[in-house]
């Protein structure tokens, strides 16, 4: 019987968390499958790299939305901040990728912390619109300081040096994909650790019932700020990856379209399931690429149908819907 004494409850918690952090078979298969493009589709590595970057971006939003319950329509602000940090460093002589990446994550994280001081006090529609508003203000400012950002034409002269001094970013995207995938995997491990820790559990508690959590003595605001900062930092890493693998930065990285796209990808995959953002990014970007090839003018139509179809047949996103289906299938099986 579950004891209510702190020692007993703590042990149960540890057991539960340990169970959750064990790697399931499907996960191992997933990550191994990520290496397949090198063998099966070597012409698609540049696309794979951009999918990995979007997946990382979606993962950062999942931490915010799926675990902390904070819906941000301005998350691209941090993506863009990371992208421009890495871009500006590379354009002004500091082209080393890894330090640029770290710097970008840091800048985005700091800005995330500053933003969180305002943002986490709000919930609901106000929160959504405030995040949107702050991001749009940043985008507008970025357009105005075109002497720094290159304005609408984008930043020019971004010169990224080879990774480790050896692997240059080539036309085939071999280095780009390895780099993006590695960063994605490492950050994923980190996020997995965070969400399956007591901190992660308290985030879920805040998402489900903030008032109760506060009554239990949980420091809601502090937790949310921490989460927001981490999510912002990760988004910044994703932005920097995009800059470094394409040697381009433009105002699009900060825009509303980007914030909306990543939200769509995350919800498509399934919120709060760690892999939702990854699955959503993969499916959305591959679908977009394929539909766009087939029908350059009207691919929007097919993507829209796909989104509607997912909501109708797979409520809770792809992973959410699949888990419902497997559960009902398991129940039916003898």
């Amino acid at each position, binding site marked *: 019987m579950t004891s209510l004494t702190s020692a007993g409850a703590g042990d149960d918690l540890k057991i539960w968390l340990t169970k959750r952090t064990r790697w399931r078979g499907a996960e191992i298969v997933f990550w191994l499958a990520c290496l397949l493009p090198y063998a099966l589709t070597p012409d*698609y590595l540049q*696309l794979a790299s*951009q999918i990995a970057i979007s997946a990382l971006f979606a993962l950062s939003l999942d931490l915010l939305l799926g675990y902390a319950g904070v819906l941000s329509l301005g998350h691209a602000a941090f993506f863009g901040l990371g992208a421009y940090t890495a871009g500006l460093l590379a354009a002004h002589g500091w082209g080393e990728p890894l330090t640029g990446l770290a710097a970008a994550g840091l800048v985005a994280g700091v800005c995330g912390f500053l933003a969180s001081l305002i943002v986490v006090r709000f919930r609901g529609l106000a929160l959504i619109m405030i995040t949107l508003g702050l991001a749009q203000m940043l985008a507008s400012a970025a357009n105005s300081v075109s002497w720094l950002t290159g*304005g*609408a034409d984008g930043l*020019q002269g971004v010169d990224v040096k080879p990774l480790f001094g050896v692997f240059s970013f080539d*036309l085939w995207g071999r280095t780009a994909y390895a780099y993006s995938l590695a960063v994605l995997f490492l950050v994923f491990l980190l996020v997995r650790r965070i969400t399956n820790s007591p901190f992660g559990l308290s985030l879920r508690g805040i998402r489900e019932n903030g008032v109760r959590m506060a009554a239990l003595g949980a420091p809601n605001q502090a937790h949310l700020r921490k989460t927001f900062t981490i999510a912002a930092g990760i988004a910044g890493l994703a932005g920097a990856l995009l800059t470094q693998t394409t040697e*381009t930065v433009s105002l*699009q990285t900060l825009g509303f379209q980007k914030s909306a796209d990543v939200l769509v990808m995350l919800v498509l995959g399934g919120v709060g399931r760690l892999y939702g953002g990854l699955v959503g990014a993969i499916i959305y970007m591959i679908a977009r690429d394929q539909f766009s090839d087939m029908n350059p*003018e009207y691919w929007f139509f097919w993507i829209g149908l796909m989104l509607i179809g997912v909501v109708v047949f797979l409520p809770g996103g792809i992973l959410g819907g699949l888990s419902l289906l497997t559960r009902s299938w398991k129940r039916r099986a003898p």
Partner: protein
Amino acid sequence: MRKSIFGVACVAALLATGAARAEPTVKIGLIISYSGQFADAGLQMDDGIKLFVQKHGDTVAGKKIVFIRKDTGGIAPAVAKRLAQELVVRDKVDVLAGFVLTPNAMAAADVSAQAKKFMVVMNAATSVIITKSPYMTRSSVTTPMLNETFGTWAAKHGIKTAYTMVSDYGPGIDAEQAFIKGFKDAGGKIVGSVRMPVANADFSAFVQRAKDAKPDAIYIFVPGGSQPAAIGKAIVEQNIDRKKTRILGQDVITSEGALKSMGDTALGVITVSNYDYNHQSPKNKAFVAAYRKAYHRTPDIFSIGGYDGMRIIYNALKKTGGKTDGKSLIDATKGMSFESPRGPVSIDPKTRDIIENVYIRRVEKVGTKLKNVEFDTINHVKDPFAATAAK
């Protein structure tokens, strides 16, 4: 008509995969904004390309021309670069072409330079693009070619003071600076300048400010779409005395759609352009008739960029005898000259950029329709940026 694009894309894709086993081909990768905000420009460009192939056949120098179409969705340099890379690496194209938007052209230029592929920019108008790859040429126009020339012309034709109103983004700022340079160098005085938000909906406040400055002329640059008509209406609403203050602008503000929206209020607006469907030459009349017949629309600057871009590719291929490597094609392009529906066109052998006529037009009523009537021509205009850089 639009479904046929789908069909052509399918056929092109099939051809592209089967081409290696079939007859020799020249593969042209088109990177164009087929969807989103700039879809209209993209579709017009594509129609210009298709019309050229329809008229001149799809075989040049013994090789078949095959297109692979990729959509950028709008301003998306990371996407444009990836598409260019995929076209080169996966589809093994020989030529990269299209490019409605400057950021996309700049990003793809890296690929052109790295992979040594011939690249034809069919619209993007920023001067510096041409320097990004030694295998690139342009079939459209540059913003300074039009606006600096216009500024000089305005100062020499009785306009002493001007107020500029441009949208606050790359092309707008380029146009403003080019116009001001040309205008001031020729003795004009700028009494005020304003930069308006790109996604602006309502121009009344800005036009009011311009009116308050009482200039001889107001120079306007806004992106195509809804804005030209909107600013035209604001000008009417603010009751600007058109005899005292002339309205000047780049061609977008008096495009066909804008003229239809503005109606008679557009009469007397003076604009600068490198092409208008009303250009009075037999070649143009034939071109416009063929375009209207095939696509039920009037050609515009995007159409002619696509059409002449294909002319450049065909001429270059004929000259190289079918050789498709970047160096051969660009060398064949340098110094090329031909008669386009827009007028005489040539490619500068040093800068690889386009040299063409620039026309000053005024909106007049021709019969019952409003048209841009050319009344002054500046011949053989080169891009001023490149001209000074070459010196």
